[in-house]
């Protein structure tokens, strides 16, 4: 599918926005469910992009930059795969192969983030110099420049894919054999686990593992929606907090139990394995 000039400008603009948000993490324009939908909206292919966004969002639920763990970059993954989906012109049928492309793109995006964050080190040294003069304006300006660099990080690759055009992109997609495409979507079903594992490693403690088990078992009841499960989880948390307070005062010091080990039984098993 060919895009007109206005559409191309809008796509690059959305990419820029997603790139900025990729570092800011505030408005969440870079989250797949929003970024892909926006690309779909400006190119007139709302439905396939919306479905792609939802699919990618599921994979990226647990991705967050914490400490040393660096998460793959969702901004480039969602923007570029949505553009490829649109250019491919296969509509909803193209979603699964666009989704498979998104993951290597997320890794590529990560390398670009590292590059820009290194450049920003130079920028804060310029800010240091401005601080010596007490120059507020100059610090503000360099802050904006740093943010724009993050925007360009996504906008430039997006523009390159657009410039390449639908032909080569489509050829690239159809060159992938069927068994690999199906295998990739099977892999996609499993990849989600990595994100969840990252989150559990951060949150797990002896106290909260039972709630994990309850959640897992209740989810086998297919008629319970996520909103329903959320309500149950919230209720359990409130009940637990109330009960642990009333029980804790009776025992004298309720807060001092179970601190003898790391407080994470499954984690201990995994560690000792």
């Amino acid at each position: 599918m060919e895009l007109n000039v206005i559409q191309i400008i809008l796509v690059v603009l959305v990419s820029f926005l997603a790139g900025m948000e990729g570092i800011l993490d505030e408005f969440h324009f870079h989250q797949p469910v929003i970024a892909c939908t926006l690309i779909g909206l400006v190119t007139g292919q709302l439905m396939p992009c919306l479905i792609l966004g939802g699919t990618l969002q599921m994979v990226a639920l647990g991705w967050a930059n914490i400490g040393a763990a660096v998460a793959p970059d969702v901004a480039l993954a969602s923007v570029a795969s949505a553009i490829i989906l649109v250019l491919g012109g296969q509509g909803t049928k193209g979603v699964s192969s666009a989704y498979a492309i998104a993951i290597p793109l997320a890794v590529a995006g990560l390398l670009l983030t590292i590059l820009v964050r290194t450049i920003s080190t130079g920028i804060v040294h310029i800010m240091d110099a401005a601080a010596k003069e007490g120059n507020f304006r100059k610090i503000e300006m360099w802050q904006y420049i740093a943010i724009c660099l993050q925007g360009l990080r996504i906008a430039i690759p997006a523009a390159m894919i657009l410039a390449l055009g639908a032909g080569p992109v489509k050829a690239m997609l159809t060159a992938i054999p069927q068994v690999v495409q199906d295998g990739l979507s099977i892999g996609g079903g499993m990849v989600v686990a990595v994100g969840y594992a990252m989150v559990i490693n951060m949150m797990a403690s002896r106290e909260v593992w039972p709630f994990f088990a309850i959640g897992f078992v209740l989810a086998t009841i297919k008629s319970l929606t996520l909103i329903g499960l959320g309500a149950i989880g919230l209720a359990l948390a409130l009940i637990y907090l109330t009960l642990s307070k009333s029980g804790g005062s009776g025992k004298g010091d309720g807060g001092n139990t179970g601190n003898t080990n790391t407080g994470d039984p499954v984690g201990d098993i995994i560690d000792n394995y």
Partner: protein
Amino acid sequence: MADQVKISKRDRIAVWWRSTFIQGSWNYERMQNGGWAYSLIPVLKKLYKTKEDRAAALKRHLEFFNCHPYLASPILGVTMALEEERANGAPVDDVAIQGVKVGMMGPLAGIGDPVFWFTVKPIIGAIAASLAMGGSIVGPILYFVAWNAIRMAFMWYSQELGYKAGSKITEDMSGGLLQDVTKGASILGMFILGSLINRWVVVKFTPVVSSIKQQKGSYIDWGNLPNNMNGVKEALIQQADGRALSMVKVTTLQDNLDQLIPGLAGLLLTFLCMYLLRKKVSPIWQILGLFAIGVFFHWIGLM
């Protein structure tokens, strides 16, 4: 103390808006320092008038800083209060201000990660994603509105709280409320994670374990049905009676696993990933590896 300089609500709103961009110049050397100084500029401009004072203030706030981007707000609030006292002649030195910043950023980041990244985001994200996968535009709109409403309200009120509590806030940290919030969030988070792993980690094995020829009468005998629509009707009635569709009952490996509990393979896979993460295997290699395994197992017919 004739001319006290006061931070107005307007200044605080300006800081609140600017703190949206706190991660803009995130760098490997001092992380959020540029964004931190940028956020405080409206206040510093008001409090300090001479070039020397301004230069000193900027230098002070270009020191290392890194926190959860939303939880930086209460710290900004406290810092504003301290700077205000300092500008009005109170003996607040650089070390005190730096101490409050560093002392608060660790524990507060520890609250922000489980609450925002691991509870609010996965829940809103999962609801929005399942709506979007069903082709509903409500998904992305819901995500955008809910996320930003929660975030903006949190950042404003926690910044105000920090400003009012001033240097006392470090004592509040050890109080019960924040602990409750953190614990409640991790309970809800773990519960939802359990559900999500069951619903969304898809591991399916295709090999056929057994195919048994069934007794006559337990399946629909397609050859002996009446003709025309009556046949269709008869077939539907028989199916409602619990008869199988074909005379061979096929059981796959997946059916056997599902009899233990549906989603077991996904759960085990998640534990494996946790183990690998603790052994410092990069998540990116794990993701690429899982794709490779998916292709390979599909090729040999296991999945």
